[in-house]
């Protein structure tokens, strides 16, 4: 087990390295660079500005400089904002994590409940309804849902705020945050909740059909115990697997939500940095997200093996 963990950890390093190269090159394919934004006023000075920003050096030199900084924990400086990348990204990363965590919890609670309910009452009205709703859920375009929710609840009904994490005037209280989190979380959680609901249902169904469940039931155990103590436990591995995968989807889906609701997270910043050709920011962003993503997947794999050693990984 330990050897497996170490093995996986070691494999992460070349992956992240490759990721850094890929993103470095990708950004530089883009026409126009950050110097252009500063050079609008005096186009003749474009080269001077480029020199000042260090963008005139050959690409491998630029990479080398950046990588060297990376090894020292320095992600470089944002060109647009003249601040160290890490200083900008970390607080925004926290904001995205808040959104992701909130959405994730919502997705799990709704997904698991609906899935279990559906499975235990298969073919009932509730089940059919749930299947219909989840069908729409997995097919939902998040950006459209966000717009509709915003229009309905923030504008028409004025029940909920339309943008940002906190009200700019009020204090940064927990309730303020929760209030602002509702619509974005629903938007981001819609698809994952539906996917989780479906896998929960199918996994539960498969487990319930097994012979040993019938035996336990015949023994006279209350239905509740049958479901929760035995069936659920054995249905868990694929459920956990898929649930964990949703985290990755969440990280991506958060971008649309952040753009629509002006949530000051990392996704919104990515969008802004790509538009501004702020290379260090984009590189830092992608590296950070990939690290996170890879680590989370890794943790889930470990968790899955732990929960059910029968599942053979690789």
């Amino acid at each position, binding site marked *: 087990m330990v050897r497996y963990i170490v093995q996986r950890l070691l494999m992460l390093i070349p992956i992240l390295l490759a990721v850094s190269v890929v993103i470095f090159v990708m950004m530089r394919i883009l026409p126009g660079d950050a110097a252009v934004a500063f050079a609008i006023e005096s186009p003749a000075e474009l080269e001077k500005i480029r020199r000042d920003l260090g963008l005139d050096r050959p690409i491998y030199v630029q990479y080398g400089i950046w990588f060297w900084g990376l090894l020292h924990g320095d992600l470089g400086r944002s060109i647009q904002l003249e601040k160290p990348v890490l200083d900008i990204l970390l607080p925004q990363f926290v904001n995205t994590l808040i959104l992701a965590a909130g959405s994730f919890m919502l997705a799990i609670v709704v997904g698991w409940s609906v899935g279990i309910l559906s499975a235990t009452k298969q073919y009932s009205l509730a089940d059919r309804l749930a299947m219909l709703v989840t069908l729409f859920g*997995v097919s939902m375009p998040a950006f459209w849902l966000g717009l509709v929710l915003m229009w309905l609840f923030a504008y028409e009904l004025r029940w909920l705020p339309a943008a940002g994490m906190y009200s700019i005037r009020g204090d940064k209280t927990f309730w303020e945050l929760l209030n602002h989190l509702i619509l974005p979380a629903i938007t981001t959680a819609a698809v994952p909740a539906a996917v989780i609901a479906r896998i929960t249902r199918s996994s539960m169904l498969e487990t319930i059909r097994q012979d040993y469940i019938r035996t336990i039931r015949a023994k006279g155990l209350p239905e509740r115990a049958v479901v929760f103590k035995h069936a659920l436990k054995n249905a868990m591995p694929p459920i956990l697997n898929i649930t964990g995968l949703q985290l990755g989807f969440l990280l991506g889906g958060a971008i*649309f939500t952040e753009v629509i609701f002006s949530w000051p997270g990392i996704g919104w910043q990515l969008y802004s940095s790509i538009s501004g050709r702020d290379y260090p920011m984009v590189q830092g962003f992608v590296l950070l997200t990939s690290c996170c993503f890879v680590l989370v997947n890794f943790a889930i794999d470990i968790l899955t093996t732990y929960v059910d050693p029968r599942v053979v990984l690789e």
Partner: protein
Amino acid sequence: MARTDSSTVTLPAASTERPQWTKKKSQLRIAWGRFYRDKMALLGGIMIVLVAFMAIFAPYLSPHDPYGMDITKRLRPPGTPGYLLGADESGRDILSRLMWGGRISLVTAIVPVIAAAIVSMVIGLVAGYYGGWIDQILMRTLDVFFAFPRIILAIALAAALGSGMISVMLALFAGLIPYISRVAYGAALTTKNLQFVEAARSCGAAGRQIIFHEILPNILAPVIVYSTTLTGLMVILAAGLSFLGLGVAPPQADWGIMLDGGRRVITIAPHVATIPGLLILFVSVAFNLLGDGLRDALDPRLRDASE
């Protein structure tokens, strides 16, 4: 591989039975029969055919020129005479734009999936069958792309390649390959170890023969099912990229751009953004239904796992 990504497909457990696909003709007929009787799948299929029909024949069907602005008709609501679904922020007929936009939205979603499916099957087959260092290289390279959440990869690629249909398709194509390859690879591995393959090899069949005659047919089913479901996601993702301004450039219009245009006037004329989104939702639902139906039709064992 334990991971199968955010889809409802679960692979069949390895079995020693010779899979049904190899008894081709009659099997296809049985599969079609199953599909035909599955009402939901049929519905999905019909919806897609309808939308595709509408898009293909847009030049003949659309009541107005999709680029024709009649400024005096700006933001008219659905039901205005001549504008069945209303007019957008420049006075263009929404229905016509949906039809013409469908050409772009559907093509940018379907083409990358087909291309990626083909390439992924090759990758999966080669890696799965030959194993060894080829396997390691291919799969490790794919792992790099797995490190990016798919949407972020698509955004970064689309931004790097500039706007336009080709860039979007390339970005989606690149993002799809790792996922479909994994499915193909897993299926190839499973099939490789089956007895009948052993049998074929001991008969003296060459590697390539085995790949094409024995393994390929068996990975087709999971790949097709997975790809169909992914197409729905790609419709959404392509529209999302256009929505962010990374897709096709105006004045060309696809559903995502229509949504973005409607965003500005959401408080005054919500129909401009709501209607294209609704269509995206329904097309996505249709593909999901189709995917589910295909899965049930092609391999009922899979159905037990999810029904």
